[in-house]
């Protein structure tokens, strides 16, 4: 667990989150701090609450108790400014969730046009630039059904980036892809991280986490058990549970 430092140097401050689905407690006193421009990876066994945590940060799921502050917005308020929150925080899902009835270009420009009220011309220009960044130039008029999984995931990343968020959350985005396409998506995430956006990445790709992360957090039983720089966590974990997990997956 990181030290309590002044709130304004941290972009995401989460304290003592508790969330249950019926009798099953998913988050059990989860606390986490993420600095600006930091790349934080969350690793841990399935069901330890990682995905749920990301959802609560973005107000896609409610919490029973605890507090979440993101970019100065208190998400756990009774009536948070959701629009403002979701403009700052982008989320990429495991199942890409592209809009099947819109072309790639329209998928990317939908939110800028509807939410940011941009003009179509500049919005489309930015969309094309983003497509270039994710190495999908030429696919503007394709439909999601015509793209591979890896391509769809990269479009999803471009779509989120179009909102120019300050925080990007990645929820096991390569879990549903073939090994060959995993690489291209990881490269894209690396580029996003390099551009200074704060990244919160839930992943099973240990090598990737080790290479890219500033901080690695190990979750178990709905809370963070151990945190530290990747070099330390992966070579000399302190907690026995962390060790057991890493032995299984590495």
């Amino acid at each position, binding site marked *: 667990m990181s030290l309590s430092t002044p709130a304004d140097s941290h972009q995401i401050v989460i*304290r*003592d989150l508790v969330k249950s689905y019926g009798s099953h407690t998913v988050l059990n006193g989860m606390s986490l701090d993420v600095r600006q421009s930091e790349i934080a990876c969350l690793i841990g066994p399935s069901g330890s609450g990682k995905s749920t945590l990301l959802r609560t940060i973005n107000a896609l799921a*409610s*919490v*029973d*108790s605890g*507090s979440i502050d993101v970019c100065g917005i208190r998400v756990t308020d009774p009536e948070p400014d959701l629009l403002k929150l979701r403009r700052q925080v982008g989320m990429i899902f495991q199942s890409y969730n592209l809009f099947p009835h819109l072309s790639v270009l329209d998928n990317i420009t939908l939110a800028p046009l509807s939410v940011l009220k941009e003009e179509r011309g500049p919005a489309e220009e930015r969309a094309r630039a983003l497509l270039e960044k994710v190495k999908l130039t030429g696919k503007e008029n394709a439909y999601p059904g015509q793209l591979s999984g890896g391509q769809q995931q990269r479009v999803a990343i471009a779509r989120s980036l179009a909102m120019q968020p300050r925080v990007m959350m990645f929820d096991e985005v390569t879990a549903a892809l073939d090994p060959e396409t995993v690489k291209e998506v990881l490269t894209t995430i690396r580029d996003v991280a390099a551009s200074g956006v704060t990244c919160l990445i839930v992943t099973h790709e240990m090598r990737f986490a080790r290479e890219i992360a500033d901080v690695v957090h190990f979750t178990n039983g709905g809370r963070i058990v151990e945190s530290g720089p990747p070099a330390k966590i992966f070579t000399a974990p302190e907690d026995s549970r962390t060790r057991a997990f890493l032995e299984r997956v590495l």
Partner: protein
Amino acid sequence: MNTQTISASRPAVAGAAFWWRLAGVLALLAVAAWTYTRYQQAIDLLIAWTPGLLASFVLNIVMGLVAIAVATLGGTALGIAQCSPHRRRATLARQVTLLLRNAPWLVAVFYLMYLVPYEVHVFGQYVFVSDWLKAAIGIGVPASGYMSEIVRGGIRSIPLQQWEAASALGLDRRQILRKVVLPQALRSMTPPWMSLYCIVTLSTSLANILGVEELMTSISLRLAGDPRPELLLPAHAYTFIVFFIYIYPISRLSRRLEKKWSLKE
């Protein structure tokens, strides 16, 4: 350290739902009381007529049973034919199914009423074919189209591996259908079949248009003999109630079975 509870607001008084329910029941009782006082004579009259009316409703039920029997026999044959490996047979069965499904039920009833004679020469005897029987068959025929689709869906829901395993054991197509595929498909076919029974029984009311003395005709005849305007609304509501009481439980059972069996899979 701030802790805020953002749980959904619970009602301040435990049992707010109870009060709502009580209010609903009281409202219903009030409506029932008002209806009775307003239409007292009509309701008493309807209650007096009930034995005769229910006897007429029995005809509806009998017609429904005949119709579903016709539909089941014809529809099963058609449905099996639709899945036949012989292309021409399958296509023909498909065309017939579509034709039956697109025919209005009233027209089908007319068809049978007008084109089947009053007497049929069978086995050297003249057999009198009564009106209601013709109407019931008339309803059963388009219903066969629906049954055909139900059977086709049921057969196709059985995985190919079952066919292959049975084939490997030496069974021919007919045996596979009878012993392996259809028994398994029976489960998934039952809820839609019950649903079809409901539709068919509701359609028996169409026989009223052709003068068959089922429930609605019975009511109309009695109304004709006692033309009081305040009788009209309750009398026609009576038909609603009788059919509803018979059909609704079957419909609900069918839906419950469907949910239960689809969850199991």
